[in-house]
Structures are given as structure tokens and as C-alpha cells.
């Protein structure tokens, strides 16, 4: 009963209390005005932080309320933000609300007030706003110092692409403040007398050290600035995956993307979170992280990778089963074992995974970087596999990788090992060919062989053995060992047939022998010659099959041009083959290649079957023949170019074009065709379609005309280069007749001249006989014979001259002087003067007439030198003095010296040629001037000095003044009468 009474009392009290509450809430408007509003400024985030309480709430009362917040800037009336903040309010609870300002808070004073309203469904009639709280001011400018200029926000970190508002506060109210973004001036909006704001839109990353924004006053050098750090947007990690190598540790990797690397912001951090276990780890590296696998046999994992920086967070998740993410470690200790020529055993080891786990290993064999064998082997720890079908003496690479057998996820990395197989004997006989020729009268065979391919050599070929066996008579085998890498040898044989074996040897043994039979008689087989066409693939050579027992064919050719030494090439072909394509990288267009086709008999002897010649590609002739022109007549001439070789041309010469330029206006002859040359000149062309015809007669020409000709060969591609034309002029039609007349006339003249020469003595006697010499007179001999010693011929020295005629004779007037006396008197220079050296008994009133003889048989120069005089010139003594000489002194001296010498060499008898002719008749002068005493030798005779002088002196051209004047001879003591 007591318990009931207590319960009843409690119920009544509670009911009373409820009634009281209801009466309080519902009966009057709730005075739930926000109280104790405090505003603080956070410059780092540019946030206004508000906190307040609602004191009017009853104890334990919890109501949903809406707070309306107003924010004004600069002044209360300038409301810039209104926001309703809904929350559940308890009694005495301190409420918080933040607002981030776009404009840096330091640039403007902000005013905040709020009011509230109950928004609780339990109180239906509660929709009345409370009164506004009083304005609270948040002015960060008060915190600034006394600097004249500030720029905000300081060191803000933003993401690339965002918009940023910057402002400056100037303590000095000046208009001349300019602001710059990275050195470029920016313009803003003035918000207040001292505040200007700039809005930077879509900012971009410039450098890790931040973007500089600064303002400066033009006066005073005041400067303020900020650094805006622009971060690139954090990227989501890519390729996030986790795997394990040993089922103990998981390694998760990802691609972090780019990192801005700002100095203001550290690199983004990465956190690995596993949701099933709830464990978390902060990764030390930016692209991988290790996770220790728990021992509780957790198989499934759900990982979340969280990337974050100051501005953003990114995450990526994966869910997987541990055993499905096994990536085995790289195998190790891979070695070849028991390596033979064709097989080898490979062994290797793997790291174990868990207990008794099986790994699938893949063994690959490579040669020349190509996989040639692949084998799968299941192993636990140790692996072994026998590789077979290997090539001898070959380098191989074996490599192994393994994967988890239970759930294949990834192959491990490869481990590789190189090894070489051992050598084996060469597997194939060398390809041998021969070339027969006669050297010094002995048949000589040149043997050629091709080096064995690597596949057939099976090792390094050390030498070749050549065994020569005489088939005609039994003899000892001759074995030659030729060290590699020789590819040919030469054997001198006799007329017998020989069988030659060639084997290649390496370190293991010899190859099968290649057999060839040669005969000592090289033979000169005349075979069919043909042409072969070249294509891009090479020369398609075909031949007629040899009837009988051909065991094969060989096509032989030289790789190089004809003018180079032959690099013999050959190709072996089967017995049923009658065509092949010969290709070689050495083939060049415009080069003639000669192919010889041999048939191989059952006796291994080769017989020449055919010869072919061809060009890989024919070209136009590169040069023109040297044309010789002959048989030129007035109507024709012959052209020939017999030295032109058609064999060495870059194509098959099909013929020749003879170009002839006729004289102007002349038409082409019938056989010629009119053509236009590249330089637009018109000429006539004659085509010779026979390449062996190397002469051509150009006919039907006009006499005395100029023709130009030019000969060029042509191939199927075109003709030779256009060279210069050669000019030829046809002679006059009658010139040959003139020649027939002139030649005999010349001949006759020559005959006459020869006769004259032969009869010169006779002519001399007839035309100009010698002057008689008294010393040589026959009379003298008669006198001597009568032994009358007193009879002598009067010597010219004995005569005493009574007058000397001095003649000043200019050169060039000799003929005149000699021919016409009258001219002498007319010319002052040539007028003779007479000196009377000895007085005569009778007065001699004047000069007498002079007679001058001249002997033309003597040298003209000597005559000139001697001049005419009435005295003999004595050579023994030089003149004691020389008068004035106008000629060069040296010449004069030489002249004198030569003169003396020449006279000195003259025999005495000849020296006496200087004489006065005794035949000179004193009556030959002018009779009117004769002296009164006739016996006196009053008359003077003029002589030409007759002497022999050396040719050298004679040839010296006498100068006008070089002759000795008479005056210079006055010192001589001898006189002539």
C-alpha cells in the first residue's frame, strides 16, 4: 500500500511537471534568442568562426532550431551573406558555425548578427523568429601592424583552376599603388578608401616556390606582397593492385600521378586501409606499400588506398583473394648440365611458397633472340629438364619463369643463362666448282668452294683437304691441306683426267667429300650464245635440257663488271632443272653479265652447254664512238668508228644514229629523216640498225658546203649523249683538176732547178767568169820554166799611190753607187772625196775618174766592210787610232777583231787577194780630166777589196756607221797607186 502511495505521488508530480512545461512552451512565445555570440577570425582559412548559446532552454530540453545569420561587410547595412543554420540545441550548449570569406578578412571589417526560430514538430506553434542579436564586429585590420601597405591573403594554398580574391590595405591613402601578378600589372576594384580587391580567376601552377603578387607605392618605395601557392589537383591513384610472393607479405603498388611539389605543401600522403581487419597503415613510399599478412588465415582482403593533401582526398579500393594474387619470385641457380652437341640438361631452383606448393615453370630455349623451344615443368623446389634437338656449336639462351599452380596470377621474372653446344663433324660436303685454263702451256684448274653454312659446318672449319686422283693411270693420291678461311686453290695438271675430292674439317672431323672430275684438256667448245633478261629479282636463265646422263647443271658467272677481276660465282642445280633465277646483291644496272651453263655428267665432269649475256637493266650508252672522217670529196665523205666496242656498253647496242646538219635550206636526203634536236635545231638522222656496221658513207653532198655530223649508238633504252657535232667542209668540184695541173708544173720547176744546180759551173763561166789571177796564170809557169828569176809580177805594194779616194758610202746605196756614178755626185754623203797624199810633178787639177770593180763571188758583207778604196788594207797592223764611231763600240771592236783574226787565218796567197787590179785601164775614166803627164799614174782606180772572211763575220749585219771610214785608215803606212 505504501509502495502504491509513493508511485501515485510520483506520477502526480510528474504530471504536474509536464503540465507546467506545456504551459510554459505553449502558452507564451519562447524567448530563445542566441546569446553570448562571439566571432573570431582565422586568417589561415580566411574563416569567421562564430560561437553562441541559447540560455533560455529548459533543463534537458532539446529542440530543433534554425539560426539565421547575417554578415555585413564594412558597415552593418551592407549585408553580404544570409544563411539559415539548422541544428538541435540543448540547454547551455555552445553552438559553432564557420563561414569562409572570399575576400581576405584582413581587408574589411565584418559584422555578424543572428536570430533563431524553433523548428520542432513537437511544438506546432513555434514559428516565430527571435529578436536579432546585436551586431558583432570582426575586424582583423586591428591586428595589423603599422606598415603602410599590406597585401592579403598571406601564403594561401589553392588548387589549380580555382578563383582567388586578393586585396591590399593601404595606410596611406594614395591612388598611385599598382599591383602585379608575376610582374604583370593587374587591376582591381576599390572596395573602400584604403582597400582594393583583385579577383584572379582560374589560377594555374607556375612554380614550386609559388606565384608572386605584389603591390608597390610609386613614392617611397613601399612594397608589399604575397605568395600564392597553386597546387595541381590531386590525382586518383592509378593501377592500384596488390600481390604476394610468399603468402606472407602483400605488396601493393599504384601510379601516384604527378606531384606539384610545392614548398608550402608536402607531397600527398598515401594510407592503406583494409576493411575486414580494420587495420590501417601509412605508406612510406608514394607508389608502393607493404602489408603484413595476418596469421589468422584471412584469405579475402578489401584494400582502400587513400591519397590526400591539404586540399583534397582521393581513394581507390580493390577486393581480392590472397591465393589468387601470388606472384612467385624469380627462379635462381639456372645452369646447363651435360652439354653435348645436340642436347643439354638445364637445372634451376625456385623459392618455396607456403607448404608443399607446386609451381609451374616455363623453360624457353632461344637462339638469335628467337624462342625455338618451350617446355612447361611442374616442380616444387628443384627443376631439371633435358633439352634435345640442339644444333652443334650453337649459342643458346635458356630462360625460366614460374607461376603459382593453384591459381595462376602472374609469371615470375625470367632468369636467363647462355650456353654453347659442342662441335660435331661438318654435315655437308662443300660446294665446289672449277675453272679450267692454260697457264704456260699447262692445263691448270682453279678450284673454288663456298664456306659451309653455320648449320652444316657444326663448328669452326679449320682446313680443307683437296685429294687429287689420276683416273687415267694409277698413281699416288695427292693430298693438299688448305687452311681456312681459304676458298680456292690452283692445281697444275697434265692431259689426264683427274678426280678431285674436297672435304672440310673442323676439330671433330671431316665433312662428306665433294667430288669433281676435270680433264687436262680444257677444250674450246663452241656453244650457243644467247641473251638473258634481267628483272628485279635477278636473271632468269634457262637452257635446253641435256639429253642423256646429266646429273645436274651449274650456272657460272662473274659478279663484277667485265673490266674488273672476275669473282667467280656458280649455282648448282638438279638434273631436272632447265631454268633458274640468278640473283645477287652485286648485280648493277648497266653492267653486262655473262652466264655459262654447264651440264654435269654421271662421271662428275662438266661440259659447257650454253652462254648467255644480259643486263639487269639496260641503260642508254654513256659515251659515243670516236668517229674518223675519211674519203672527203665534194659530194661525200666516209665515217668510221671501228674501235668502238659494243661489248662494254651499258646495254645491247642495237645500232647507230648518224646525225647530219645540212647547210641552210638544204633538205634531208632520202635515206635520212628529219629530226629536231633538244636544242631545237633541225638535222637529218640516219639509223644504222646493225651494231656491227661501224662505217657510213655520207653521200649526195653539195660541193664547197659545211656539214656537221655526229654519230651515237643506241640501245633499247635510248641513244648516247648528245655530243658536239664535227664540222666538215666539202671541197670545190674543180679543185682536183687544178691539182692535176699545178703538181706537174711544180715538178718541172724542180727539175729545172736541179739541172741548174748541176750545171752551175758552166753557168758561172758563161754568166760571170772569175777574174784572172796573175799568180795563177799559165804564163807564170812558162816564165818559171824558162828559169828567169828576175821576171816577177809586180806587187801591188810597190806602187806608190798619188791619190786616195775617200768614199763615204752609206749602206743601202751600194747598188746605186756601183751602177750609176751620177747618183754619187747628186748625194752629198755618197760623193767621193780625193786626198792628194803625194805631190805630183805636174799639177793635178782635180780628181780623176775612178773605176770600181766588184767581185760578186765574194761575200757581200765583206765587200761592204772593205768598201771601195784606192788603197790596200793591211791586216797585220790595226789602225793606230780610231776616229769617232757612231756604232756601238763593242760591235766595232768585235768587228775589227774578227776581221783581224779572219785575215790572220788566211793563207799568204789568199791574203794577197787584196790587190789593185793591174787590168784597170787608166783610160777608163773621164778623158777630160786626164793629167797633162800621161806616164804619171794620175788616175786612180777604185777597187773592191777581195778577200775571204769567216762566215760568222760575214753574217753580222753591217750597220750604217760600223764601216771604217777612210779617215781611220790614214794612219796606215801603205798606199796603193
Amino acid at each position, binding site marked *: 500500500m505504501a509502495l502504491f502511495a509513493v508511485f501515485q505521488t510520483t506520477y502526480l508530480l510528474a504530471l504536474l511537471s509536464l503540465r507546467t512545461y506545456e504551459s510554459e512552451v505553449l502558452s507564451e512565445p519562447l524567448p530563445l534568442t542566441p546569446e553570448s555570440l562571439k566571432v573570431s577570425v582565422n586568417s589561415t582559412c580566411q574563416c569567421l568562426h562564430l560561437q553562441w548559446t541559447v540560455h533560455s532552454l529548459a533543463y534537458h530540453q532539446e529542440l530543433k532550431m534554425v539560426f539565421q545569420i547575417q554578415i555585413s561587410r564594412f558597415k552593418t547595412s551592407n549585408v553580404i551573406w544570409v544563411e539559415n543554420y539548422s541544428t538541435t540545441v540543448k540547454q547551455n550548449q555552445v553552438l559553432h558555425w564557420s563561414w569562409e570569406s572570399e575576400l581576405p578578412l584582413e581587408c574589411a571589417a565584418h559584422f555578424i548578427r543572428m536570430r533563431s526560430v524553433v523548428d520542432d514538430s513537437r511544438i506546432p506553434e513555434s514559428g516565430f523568429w527571435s529578436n536579432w542579436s546585436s551586431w558583432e564586429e570582426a575586424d582583423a585590420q586591428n591586428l595589423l601592424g603599422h606598415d603602410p601597405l599590406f597585401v592579403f591573403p598571406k601564403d594561401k594554398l589553392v588548387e589549380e583552376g580555382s578563383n582567388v580574391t586578393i586585396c591590399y590595405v593601404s595606410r596611406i591613402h594614395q591612388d598611385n599603388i599598382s599591383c602585379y601578378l608575376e610582374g604583370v600589372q593587374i587591376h582591381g576594384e576599390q572596395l573602400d578608401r584604403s582597400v582594393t580587391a583583385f579577383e584572379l580567376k582560374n589560377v594555374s601552377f607556375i612554380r614550386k616556390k609559388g606565384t*608572386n603578387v605584389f603591390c608597390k607605392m610609386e613614392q617611397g618605395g613601399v612594397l608589399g606582397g604575397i605568395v600564392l601557392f597553386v597546387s595541381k589537383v590531386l590525382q586518383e591513384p592509378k593501377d592500384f593492385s596488390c600481390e604476394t610472393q610468399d603468402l606472407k607479405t602483400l605488396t601493393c603498388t599504384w601510379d601516384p600521378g604527378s606531384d606539384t611539389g610545392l614548398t608550402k605543401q608536402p607531397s600527398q600522403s598515401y594510407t592503406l586501409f583494409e576493411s575486414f581487419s580494420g587495420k590501417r597503415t601509412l605508406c612510406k613510399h608514394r607508389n608502393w606499400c607493404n602489408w603484413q599478412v595476418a596469421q589468422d588465415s584471412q584469405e579475402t582482403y578489401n584494400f582502400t588506398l587513400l591519397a590526400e593533401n591539404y586540399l583534397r582526398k582521393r581513394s581507390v579500393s580493390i577486393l581480392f583473394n590472397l591465393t589468387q594474387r601470388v606472384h612467385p619470385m624469380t627462379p635462381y641457380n639456372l645452369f646447363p648440365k651435360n652439354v653435348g652437341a645436340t642436347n643439354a640438361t638445364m637445372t634451376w631452383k625456385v623459392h618455396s611458397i607456403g607448404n608443399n606448393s607446386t609451381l609451374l615453370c616455363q623453360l624457353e630455349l632461344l637462339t638469335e633472340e628467337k624462342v625455338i623451344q618451350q617446355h612447361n615443368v611442374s616442380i616444387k623446389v628443384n627443376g631439371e629438364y633435358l633439352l634435345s634437338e640442339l644444333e652443334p656449336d650453337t649459342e643458346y639462351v635458356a630462360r625460366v619463369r614460374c607461376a603459382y599452380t593453384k591459381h595462376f596470377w602472374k609469371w615470375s621474372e625470367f632468369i636467363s643463362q647462355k650456353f654453347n653446344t659442342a662441335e660435331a663433324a661438318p654435315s655437308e660436303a662443300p660446294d665446289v666448282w672449277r675453272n679450267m685454263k692454260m697457264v704456260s702451256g699447262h692445263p691448270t684448274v682453279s678450284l673454288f668452294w663456298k664456306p659451309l653454312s653455320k648449320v652444316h659446318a657444326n663448328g669452326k672449319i679449320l682446313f680443307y683437304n683437296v685429294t687429287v686422283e689420276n683416273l687415267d693411270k694409277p698413281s699416288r693420291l695427292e693430298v693438299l691441306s688448305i687452311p681456312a678461311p681459304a676458298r680456292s686453290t690452283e692445281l697444275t695438271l697434265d692431259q689426264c683426267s683427274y678426280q678431285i675430292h674436297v672435304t672440310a674439317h673442323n676439330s671433330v672431323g671431316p665433312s662428306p667429300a665433294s667430288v669433281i672430275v676435270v680433264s687436262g684438256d680444257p677444250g674450246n667448245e663452241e656453244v650457243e650464245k644467247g641473251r638473258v633478261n634481267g628483272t628485279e629479282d635477278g636473271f632468269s636463265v634457262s637452257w635446253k635440257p641435256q639429253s642423256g646422263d646429266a646429273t645436274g647443271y651449274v650456272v657460272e658467272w662473274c659478279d663484277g663488271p667485265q673490266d674488273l677481276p672476275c669473282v667467280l660465282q656458280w649455282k648448282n642445280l638438279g638434273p631436272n632443272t632447265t631454268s633458274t633465277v640468278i640473283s645477287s646483291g652485286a648485280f648493277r644496272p648497266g653492267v653486262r653479265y655473262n652466264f655459262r651453263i654447264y651440264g654435269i655428267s654421271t662421271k662428275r665432269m662438266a661440259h659447257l652447254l650454253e652462254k648467255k649475256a644480259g643486263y639487269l637493266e639496260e641503260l642508254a650508252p654513256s659515251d659515243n664512238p670516236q668517229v674518223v672522217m675519211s674519203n672527203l670529196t665534194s659530194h661525200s665523205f666516209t665515217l668510221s668508228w671501228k674501235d668502238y666496242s659494243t661489248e662494254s656498253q651499258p646495254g645491247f647496242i642495237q645500232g647507230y644514229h648518224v646525225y647530219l646538219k645540212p647547210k641552210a635550206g638544204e633538205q634531208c636526203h632520202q635515206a635520212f629523216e628529219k629530226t629536231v634536236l633538244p636544242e631545237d635545231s633541225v638535222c637529218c638522222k640516219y639509223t644504222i640498225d646493225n651494231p656491227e656496221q661501224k662505217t657510213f658513207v655520207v653521200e649526195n653532198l653539195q660541193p664547197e658546203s659545211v656539214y656537221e655530223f655526229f654519230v651515237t649508238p643506241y640501245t633499247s633504252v635510248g641513244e648516247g649523249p648528245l655530243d658536239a657535232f664535227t664540222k666538215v667542209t666539202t671541197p670545190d668540184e674543180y679543185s682536183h683538176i687544178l691539182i692535176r695541173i699545178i703538181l706537174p708544173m711544180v715538178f718541172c720547176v724542180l727539175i729545172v732547178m736541179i739541172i741548174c744546180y748541176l750545171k752551175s759551173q758552166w753557168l758561172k763561166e758563161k754568166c760571170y767568169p772569175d777574174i784572172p789571177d796573175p799568180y795563177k796564170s799559165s804564163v807564170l809557169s812558162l816564165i818559171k820554166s824558162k828559169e828567169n828569176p828576175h821576171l816577177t809580177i809586180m806587187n801591188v805594194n810597190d806602187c806608190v799611190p798619188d791619190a786616195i779616194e775617200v768614199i763615204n758610202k752609206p749602206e743601202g746605196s751600194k747598188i746605186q753607187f756601183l751602177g750609176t756614178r751620177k747618183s754619187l755626185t747628186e748625194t752629198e754623203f755618197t760623193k767621193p772625196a780625193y786626198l792628194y797624199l803625194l805631190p805630183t810633178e805636174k799639177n793635178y787639177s782635180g780628181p780623176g775618174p775612178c773605176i770600181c770593180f766588184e767581185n760578186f763571188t765574194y761575200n757581200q758583207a765583206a765587200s761592204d766592210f772593205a768598201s771601195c778604196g784606192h788603197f790596200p788594207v793591211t791586216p797585220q797592223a790595226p789602225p793606230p787610232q780610231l776616229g769617232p764611231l757612231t756604232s756601238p763600240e763593242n760591235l766595232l771592236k768585235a768587228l775589227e777583231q774578227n776581221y783581224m783574226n779572219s785575215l790572220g787565218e788566211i793563207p799568204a796567197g789568199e791574203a794577197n787577194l787584196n790587190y789593185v787590179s793591174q787590168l784597170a785601164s787608166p783610160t777608163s775614166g773621164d778623158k777630160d780630166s786626164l793629167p797633162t803627164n800621161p806616164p804619171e799614174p794620175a788616175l786612180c782606180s777604185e777597187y773592191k777589196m777581195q778577200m775571204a772572211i769567216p762566215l760568222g763575220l760575214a753574217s753580222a749585219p753591217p750597220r750604217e756607221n760600223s764601216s771604217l771610214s777612210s779617215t781611220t785608215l790614214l794612219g796606215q803606212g801603205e798606199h796603193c797607186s
Partner: protein
Amino acid sequence: MLACLCAVLWHLPAVPAHNRTGDPGPGPSIQKTYDLTRYLEHQLRSLAGTYLNYLGPPFNEPDFNPPRLGAETLPRATVNLEVWRSLNDRLRLTQNYEAYSHLLCYLRGLNRQAATAELRRSLAHFCTSLQGLLGSIAGVMAALGYPLPQPLPGTEPTWTPGPAHSDFLQKMDDFWLLKELQTWLWRSAKDFNRLKKKMQPPAAAVTLHLEAHGF
């Protein structure tokens, strides 16, 4: 002449001992220090260009001359000419030593904050060279018998920005650090040139020797 000889002999004890013993004296080391300052000038020219580009405009602009706001702790190289002339050798060397000690610390701080590896390499190389200059100055002071200035305990200069130190001001400090360093290198070149001339053997002694032969 005799009076002159006596005067010179009277002043001989004032000449440092190394001049009389045939020891080359501090002359070569002063010359090397001078050469080192010229080399560092050249090296700084390249480094400053790179670093100011790293800071960005306006710091890399040639005519940028900001007020010296936050760089008050930097040792000032500029000094009144008369004051500079009146400095004695010891004070002159001490100022150089102290200045480069401080500047080296600041430079090492700069190196720690550099964001690129190439810049860190360049700064480290320059710091090594500057350390060499410091050692060279210490060598000259020791040769002249001057003690090295002892750093006051707890006054190790630092170059870490304080909380109120904005990044822009930090850049200004970096700018001023490089500028002061350059000015100090200029001043040091003048200092050591002056010292070098002063330490050259007096010409009067040579003259005296020649004249003695004349007697």
C-alpha cells in the same frame, strides 16, 4: 744618409717578424684570399641568376630594389668610406670573418629549403667555396697573429622563417642575402687588396741595401 739609415733601423721592429726571417709571410695567403673572393664573385653571379629565377618575378628583375624589411639580421657590407679607411687590419679581418660566418649559415638554410636538386647542388657547391674563403681569412688572421672572433653562445644565426614571416618576406630575405653576399665579396676584394699592398715589403729597405754598397 746616416739619419735615414737610423730612422729605418729604428722602425724595423715594427715590421712583422716574417719579413725579416725570409718567410713569405701572409702576402701569398692574402693574395689567395683576394683571388678567392674574385672567384666567388663570379660563382655567385651564376648562382644568383638561377636562384632569383627560382623565386620568380619581381625578384629576378634587374631593377628590383626592395626595401630591406626582414633582413635586419644580415651583416651589412655597406659602410661609410671614412669609417672603412680608418679600420685597422684586425678589425677589417674580423668583420670579414664574422660576416661570412653568418652568411654561410644563412646560405645553408637556403640550401635546405631549395626545392630542386640542381639548385641544392649549386648552393652546396657555393657553400663549400664560401667555407674555403672563411678558412682562408682565418689563415690570414692567424698569420698576422690575430685571434679568431668567438661566437657568442646561443647566438647561432638561423634562417628559418618565424610564424609571422610570410613567404613573400622570406623571398625578400633570400634576395637580400644574395645581395649582401655580393656586396661583401666586393668589399672583401677591396679589403684584401688594401691589405696586400700594405703587406708588401717596404721599398725603403731595398734602397737602403743598395746604398750601403755605395758607402
